């Protein structure tokens, strides 16, 4: 869907490049996560890919055509979901959606989307009366109102309660199952783990790692079992490598002979990988 090669960008007033030679592909029908610490260039990358910044170096091909060739009709087939509310607050939710919908040739069934997201009953209310969560859900409806083939989502579940976040994540999965492609930018590693087919970690304006979440966990994995047991009057902890557990006599001795308080399997999370590959651990 997208081929990004040697992408570099410098804001006119900055001395340094914000993006320095990024390379990545987004395949059709996948959810691609773009991850990295704040200020690393995720938003700039998205701004370039949605054609808000045009004077970049390198090349971007969208559906095998140079992105620079596309005009405003590019937006007929992409949807952009923002992290912050982007509505006319003194218009109703329905008026907002209808205004934007009329700009597109391909129009989605937004009533069904609003019903799925639990805001259909409130569609006649002004957006200023909406809670933050309702505005975020309305953002998603706006992003989807043209049945896009490519969807850019920035922190789509931030500000949602777990139940509504679940509904929205299910809709994103359904969208992918229907052939849609997503570029997802988020700090919530649970969302990434659950949704993304592949992820790219950014550091210093570059992509430093790209793979599936599973492969990354294997690559950076240190899975172990941690046992807490009673030794005399004290609680003691001991860790064992998961891989060699079946042949580890010390582990079996401990389980047989000591009073076990807890036993936890410890796997590398995407949070751990994020910290490791982006180099953001502590500012102290």
């Amino acid at each position, binding site marked *: 869907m997208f081929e990004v090669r040697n992408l570099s960008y410098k804001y006119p007033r900055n001395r340094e490049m914000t993006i320095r030679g990024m390379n990545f592909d987004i395949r059709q029908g996948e959810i691609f996560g773009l991850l990295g610490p704040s200020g690393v260039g995720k*938003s700039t990358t998205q701004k370039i890919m949605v054609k*808000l910044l045009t004077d970049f170096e390198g090349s971007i091909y969208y559906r095998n055509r140079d992105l620079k060739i596309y005009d*405003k009709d590019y937006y007929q087939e992409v949807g*952009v979901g*923002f992290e912050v509310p*982007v*509505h006319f607050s003194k218009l109703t939710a329905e008026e907002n959606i209808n205004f934007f919908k*009329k*700009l*597109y040739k391909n129009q989605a069934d937004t009533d069904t989307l609003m019903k799925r997201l639990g805001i259909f009953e409130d569609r006649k209310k002004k957006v200023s009366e909406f809670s933050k969560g309702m505005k975020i859900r309305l953002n998603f409806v706006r992003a989807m109102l043209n049945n896009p083939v490519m969807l850019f989502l920035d922190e789509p579940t931030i500000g949602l309660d777990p139940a509504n976040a679940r509904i929205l994540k299910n809709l994103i999965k359904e969208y992918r199952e229907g052939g849609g492609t997503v570029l997802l930018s988020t700090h919530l590693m649970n969302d990434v783990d659950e949704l993304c087919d592949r992820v790219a970690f950014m550091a210093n304006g570059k992509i430093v790692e790209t793979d599936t979440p599973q492969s990354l966990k294997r690559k950076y994995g240190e899975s172990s079992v941690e046992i807490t047991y009673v030794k005399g009057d004290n609680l003691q902890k001991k860790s064992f490598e998961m891989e060699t557990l079946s042949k580890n006599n010390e582990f079996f001795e401990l389980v047989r002979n000591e009073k076990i308080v807890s036993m936890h399997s410890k796997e590398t999370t995407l949070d751990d990988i994020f910290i490791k590959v982006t180099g953001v651990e502590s500012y102290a």
Partner: protein
Amino acid sequence: MPNFLVLLVGELKRMVEYKIAAASVVVALIWIGILYLTEIPDITFIFPLLIFVDATSMAILMVGVTIFFEKQEGSLRAILVSPISKTDYLLSKVVVTVTSSVLTLIVLYIYALLFKDINLSLIGLLSAVILVAFFHAQIGFILSYYSRDFTSLLVNMMKYLFIFFMPTLLVYTGIINHELFDKAVYLAPTTAAMTLLNASTGNVESGDLIYALAYLGIGSVILFVFVLRLFDSFAAREGGV
């Protein structure tokens, strides 16, 4: 419906919902109040002055207000990633702004016809208002691009009015009467605007009229091209993803 019309209808609807239209009506009522309080029965020579104030400052303000509402609420971001051309987007705002100035003119003219003596060319005044409001809508865009927030827009607008508007008014009302100053104000767009509006009274020399028409006509085209060019960097700045 073509996207320009969708934008135009949306702009008009928001003018009503955001009470911008109501504010415009209040301003028109203030002008009527001023006309009411004027003891001179024949207001032919005062009338263009009121229209001048409205078509210049209100045009700047209306464009600025709509852009800042969109910036403040984030709806500008949604607009920037929609399948609309920047020309359509900007022109829809210009058309609504010019329409508002024209409506104010019509309301004031009807009042003047009913309750005062007035003798000027409505068609001439109407054409002048369209050109003056169009020109100043472009000024509104430029000031909005370079203003961080609504307060700084108001400050920038006051600077514009102080630099261009005041000298024109001082010369027009005869408060300042100096040859050098009289010539210097020809550089100001507000003087061209005043001349054009005043031409409807038949009290302007044809050389001055041609100069004013050329200034505002050519100036509007140049400014619109400039506004279009500046829009890209404005969009990149405001269209955070």
